[in-house]
């Protein structure tokens, strides 16, 4: 047993701290240690939080691909991106505009979104300009390769020409029985207004650096040589289309060429011609995408919503009504120039 040791008189007990005075050194040390411990705990919790957020996707999944693991942040989902209207480059590439830049950006953003395991492209488009369609086609292939996620195309009313071209880059295609698709081909619309110009007394007299600089000019008829040049151009772009379909659908080029005379097909006909994989609706497309991604059960859908465009369209439409621009524009025929993967019947 330890003996009682009296405090020597030379060591007085510590006085009680007086408010306003500097705290005793021991008290300060305790404060510092306590606060450092708390700050350390905060840092640990932040690091743990960041680690949970940044875990690789595979670790978040439980057995059988289910996302029921501890600290799972999100259920696996299928992204939904609508591609509606002609596929063209936007006017200025602004965020709220509609065009191939915005679709490409949204596709990539969706593929990079946490929890997105597959994407459904809801296509309702008669096609568009060759450059824009090929850009989107290339972006879809890139996203599939880089992010390793399946992409399923769902056809709405129409997915013709360029609309079908981009679908060829997807893993699978789902169409409604009455969808209008096909129209595999290229068109370059040239108007000859020579007669009209003559009537109004207009005469074009271009000064050219070369013989073909004013090729496809509406002010005169095309020469046989120019027609040959244009046809070669069309054939080249047509070859790209056929190759894309043959590669995407895993069909021989000869078989694709038989279907690629520019005609349109219904969903039923397209299925018979192996241009689509199955007939179905949006739910079927989501379930197929989920199945390809290995999602168990009914997949959650995450829709791509662009609120900025909604606002921009609201103001544009208000402006159009006020100024009468809407009625003027609707009276004009919708024309698109240049080389087109487009079906004009829609």
């Amino acid at each position, binding site marked *: 047993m330890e003996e009682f040791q009296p405090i020597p008189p030379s060591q007085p007990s510590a006085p009680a701290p007086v408010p306003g005075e500097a705290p005793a050194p021991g008290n300060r040390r305790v404060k510092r240690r*306590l606060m*450092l411990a708390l700050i350390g705990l905060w840092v640990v919790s*932040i690091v743990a*939080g960041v680690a949970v957020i940044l875990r690789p996707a595979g670790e978040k999944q439980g057995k059988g691909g289910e996302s029921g*693991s501890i*600290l799972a942040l999100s259920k696996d989902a299928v992204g939904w991106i609508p591609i509606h209207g002609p596929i063209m480059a936007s006017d200025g590439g602004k965020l709220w505009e509609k065009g191939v830049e915005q679709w490409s950006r949204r596709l990539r953003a969706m593929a990079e979104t946490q929890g997105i395991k597959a994407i459904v492209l809801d296509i309702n488009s008669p096609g568009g300009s060759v450059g824009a369609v090929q850009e989107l086609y290339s972006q879809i292939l890139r996203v599939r390769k880089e992010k390793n996620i399946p992409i399923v195309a769902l056809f709405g009313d129409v997915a013709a020409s360029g609309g079908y071209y981009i679908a060829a880059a997807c893993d699978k295609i789902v169409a409604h029985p009455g969808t209008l698709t096909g129209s595999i081909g290229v068109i370059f619309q040239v108007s000859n207004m020579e007669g009209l110009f003559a009537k109004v007394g207009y005469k074009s007299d271009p000064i050219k650096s070369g013989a073909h600089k004013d090729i496809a000019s509406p002010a005169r008829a095309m020469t046989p040589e120019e027609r040959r040049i244009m046809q070669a151009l069309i054939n080249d772009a047509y070859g790209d289309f056929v190759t894309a379909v043959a590669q995407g659908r895993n069909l021989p080029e000869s078989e694709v060429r038989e279907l690629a005379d520019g005609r349109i097909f219904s969903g039923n006909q397209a299925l018979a011609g192996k241009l689509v994989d199955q007939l179905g609706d949006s739910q079927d497309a989501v379930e197929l995408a989920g199945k390809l991604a290995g999602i168990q059960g009914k997949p959650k859908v995450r829709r791509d919503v662009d609120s900025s465009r909604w606002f921009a369209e609201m103001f544009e439409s208000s402006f159009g009504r006020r100024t009468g621009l809407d009625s003027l524009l609707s009276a004009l025929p919708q024309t698109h120039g240049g080389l087109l993967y487009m079906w004009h019947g829609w």
Partner: protein
Amino acid sequence: MTGIETIYDYFEDHQKAATSVNETRPLLFGVLCFALGGVSLFISHTLSQRLTFLTFSWSSLLLTMLWQVSAGFVLAAVLHMIMDIQGRKGSAGSLFVLLGLANLVWALAVPFILLARLFFPDKNWPGSVIFLGVGFLVLSLKARSLRDNYHVSTARSWVSLAMPYVALIVAALIGLSLALWVAILKVMQWAH
């Protein structure tokens, strides 16, 4: 007195901390507190999947920190103005630092959210309860800071603190009502 001791005193002896902050006015320390509070808020929002407008990235984190510091400056300025109108004397700089110290409490949300996700992985309500609880604690500490800095009653500090938030809500409601009114007028014009 170091920053660590100021934080300790803010929770242990808040009047002493207020006096100390009033003497030294460590504004940079206040900025750091708001920024760290912003980090906690950002991480906890991401963990609870409440990051609606931003994605998880360094730029988003910096934006949140900037937003927290800016909001802190504005709140301190508005509250100082409100107290000044009421004839109360105090330092706006000290108030900014004390509000920043209150903002540090968002650090509590991160471990709580982690625990909530551990025990209730498929539920959203624990996150809401945590944010409400910690948010109320932050607000109460802000009210206390106001009380310590301007020597006002608890009730007055709460009313003064509520004023900017209520003003913001009222302004939003007025804006929404105006937008709705304009939309109704447009629909009526279109119908005619």
